[in-house]
């Protein structure tokens, strides 16, 4: 069966510090991968998606970047965090014949102080 991992689960960082969040998927190959952000009291905003290694599409201009160095690894980064980067970050994958269905990881709670 497939599983998706995210770490860390929680993170508190000062403004201006760098960020690296990691997401890995097990039990599938060549998945589509997605990064979402959920700000307090708001819905999910798609930040990045990837259809293959090294292929990243950005949905909104922002202070963040994403990379996919391996087939089942998706990394969200920032060189200098802003207060507005605080939120709940969710990674998701889609693959196989499940039409459009995405499976979500447990999320990372990021607080920027």
């Amino acid at each position: 069966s497939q599983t998706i991992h995210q770490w860390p689960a929680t993170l508190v960082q000062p403004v201006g510090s760098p960020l690296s969040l990691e997401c890995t998927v097990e039990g599938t190959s060549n998945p589509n991968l997605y990064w979402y952000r959920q700000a307090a009291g708001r819905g999910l905003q798609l930040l990045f998606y990837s259809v293959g290694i090294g292929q990243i599409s950005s949905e909104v201009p922002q202070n963040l970047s994403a990379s996919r160095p391996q087939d089942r690894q998706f990394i969200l980064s920032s060189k200098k965090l802003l207060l507005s980067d605080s939120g709940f970050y969710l990674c998701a994958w889609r693959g196989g014949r499940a039409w459009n269905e995405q499976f979500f990881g447990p999320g990372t709670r990021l607080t920027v102080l």
Partner: protein
Amino acid sequence: AQSVTQLDSQVPVFEEAPVELRCNYSSSVSVYLFWYVQYPNQGLQLLLKYLSGSTLVKGINGFEAEFNKSQTSFHLRKPSVHISDTAEYFCAVGSSGSARQLTFGSGTQLTVLP
């Protein structure tokens, strides 16, 4: 372009009462619709999905939803809720592009009261 509107941000309901969470969508192409549930500090879990066929879709935990093309709606219902149904519920519409992206609504917080 696609969009999803969840008309109620918060829905309080007493235990064992019925509930309906409303969702309206707009899409210029074929429609694929989903409901997800999110418990506090957790990821999202799929409740049910509509891809084609019968407009009444049954999901997990006793939930069901009805696709209404003329009203562009996909409302979620449960005839009798439990305390454990307290969570946030998201409606989403899928795209047919290569990335098969989902566009989510802003969510509805369902609170079941004893």
